């Protein structure tokens, strides 16, 4: 699992590196922050308060994930179910926020093929969103298994591995949020 995550780090490293390389390289609007083309100033697209909230949601989901693992390690099956469901719900909330953000940007004229910002932004955050989606599926599968009583503290390793993946996806978002949204 650690090897897999190490490998994933390079995957996101490539995507984030591309985004950073192409920051401010767009030759057409719209942009992440206010920019000027041919004397016309275009308003930036980023809505930092909104994204901060959704980043916070994802961050909290790591807390509930830790609680889920702690619950099953002391063989508290009910606690496991509750915290797994909470983690999945927080993940879904984050995804909904991302879907809202994507549609909002699209309505303001940013598509995958509009400019370099659109290309790099959507592909980077889209791949992250895909990873979150996979994580949510894993969490839901675990939740169903937990409801059927198939998870005990003996095979808590499954929960631990899912947790590792989930924390990784979360950390990647912290990096993306910092490098892509906050540092301009």
């Amino acid at each position: 699992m650690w090897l897999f995550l190490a490998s994933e780090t390079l995957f996101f490293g490539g995507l984030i590196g591309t985004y950073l390389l192409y920051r401010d390289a767009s030759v057409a609007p719209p942009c992440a922050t206010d920019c000027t083309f041919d004397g016309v100033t275009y308003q930036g697209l980023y809505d930092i308060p909104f994204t901060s909230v959704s980043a916070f949601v994802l961050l909290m989901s790591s807390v509930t994930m830790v609680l889920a693992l702690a619950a099953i390690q002391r063989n508290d099956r009910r606690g496991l179910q509750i915290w797994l469901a909470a983690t999945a719900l927080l993940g879904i909330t984050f995804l909904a926020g991302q879907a809202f953000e994507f549609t909002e940007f699209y309505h303001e004229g940013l598509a995958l093929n509009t400019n370099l910002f659109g290309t790099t932004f959507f592909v980077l955050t889209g791949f992250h969103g895909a990873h979150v989606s996979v994580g949510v599926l894993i969490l839901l599968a675990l939740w169903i298994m937990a409801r059927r009583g198939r998870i005990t503290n003996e095979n808590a390793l499954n929960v631990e591995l899912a947790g590792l993946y989930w924390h990784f996806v979360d950390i990647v978002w912290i990096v993306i949020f910092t490098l892509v949204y906050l540092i301009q």
Partner: protein
Amino acid sequence: MAGLAIEQPAPTLGQAIRRIREEGATYQGLWSWLTTIDHKRIGMLYGATAMFFFLVGGIEALILRLQLARPEQTLVDPDQFNRLFTMHGTTMIFLVVMPLSNAFFNLLIPLMIGARDVAFPRLNAFSYWTFLFGGLFMMASFFTGNPAGSFIEGHLGAPDGGWFGYAPLTRGEFSAGTGIDYWAFGLLILGVASMAGGFNFAVTIINMRAPGLTLFRMPVFVWMTLVTSFLIIFAMPIITVALFQILFDRIFAANFFNVAAGGTPLLWQHMFWLFGHPEVYILILPAMGIVSEILPTFSRKPLFGYPFVVFSGIAIAFMSWGVWAHHMYTTGLGSVANAAFGVSTILIAVPTGIKIFNWLGTMWGGSISLKTPLLFAVGFIAMFTIGGLTGVMHSVVPSDYQQQDTYFVVAHFHQVLVGGALFGLFGGIYYWFPKFTGKLMNEPLGQLHFWGMFIGFNLTFQPMMILGLMGMIRRTATYEDGLGYGLWNMMSTVGAFVIAASVLVFLINVVVSMRSREEAGADPWDGRTLEWGIPSPPPAYNFATIPEVNALDPVWHEKYVEKEAGETVPAMAGGADLHAAEGETPHLPSPSIIPLIASIGPALIAAGFIYIDNPWVMPLIPIGAVITMVGLIAWALEPATE
């Protein structure tokens, strides 16, 4: 490779699985191969498939050589020439050398570390089937036609961007048709297979070694497999990102490599070579491991400087991450960057040189038995040294400016990949063939194969060195008369056909040897590592009792004791008897068809995306996704053993 006989009437899956369980390795029906999770069988499947692709890639090379044999020929047009050399390079690297190395990982790693299988046997089967479908998927591009998508017009639809597919030349406006899509998706699918294999072998080697087998008692081949696995794990994600980017550009009109939108062509080159240079070592390190096993056996001496060989392998792997821009000297990175990468490239020759001297030291003063495996190993050392030295020539920036894109470069990398990797791999085939088939390969035919290949190889590629220094440019479909290229090109073409003939000798040898009645026995070469301590071919469970390892070269120490003066005498008795205790059959994981099913999905998804505008083909995306999902869920729910 042993008889793929289909029994009549065909048994159902359930019946077949029952027979596989009851009869074990003796049951050879079709289902037993489709459902196998036995690392030895998967290794054989890898080997046989790689050999098939080797013949395809070889035929492509022969067509290229025929075209270039004389000036201004028109056997193929420039467009077909582009497609052929692209597929030749891609096939030989991703569908021949990598899977052939993988065949050896599969066959040998569990045996060498005293395990009954790899850590994740079903994932291993999944790797193989994904590799097979990825390879076939890429090959299918030949039949897709270009650019109208017609099967009939006689166009080749294969990719035309060269094996490193430089963007933006691979964007839709410069490479119409679907060739590049097949190429990029094919590499993505093959990447999944390689990554799964990389994780599997890294975990296997770290976690499943027999008691007493500390890291520094592992055979060098196991070490090199571990190093290669790590390289795969870290290099593949980078090419994955680059391939996704070019596919987004091609299919969804994204702008990653769109220069008009501010994109830079150098992005692809950086990403590709940051993957591509470690990839070079992914190709060569397994062969180095094989050679490090062959030399001690046939010199009857332990490997000279074992820790140096291991550490230089590790050093090469680390340094391989810091040399990628030596492929890009002429792109204008600036003299500081060029100088830095030039120095790092020169430095990586140091651990490589250490290995070469250790190999020579291994043979020095040994009682050498010049059998075919050793011939190939020695051929490897000689040819790889020339290849390595020409590599050092390239690392010198001003010299490289002259050699960039000439046949000198072509000669150099064939020198390391054919003279190096392939010679090593062939040596490995001759060396371990008796272990897995129970039959020795025919020695006279083997010698004929070696000398044919050795002479043919030098006849093909040494003239290319001269051509390159004369200024002949690679990747050009023909050349004018009167430049003085004709003679050397003709020599090179003749050499290519000599290689082809020698490969034919090899194939004949495989058939002849398989049919031979003579049994090789467990230990025909007087071997040193664990696999020689069990019967040939090994039973399905490999080791009846898991051995305990007390030294490097455990089987050797079981057979011989060392006297004070350093001479060895046969051991009288005692030591761990690896083939005893034939009592209870160890419990093995059950065969499974699910890895095969799950591996069909990615190719279907890829086909759906390539023809996303076609309402009849597009539904393959959800279908493929469902197949993969259902496969993975069934995989998770299926008990690993009954």
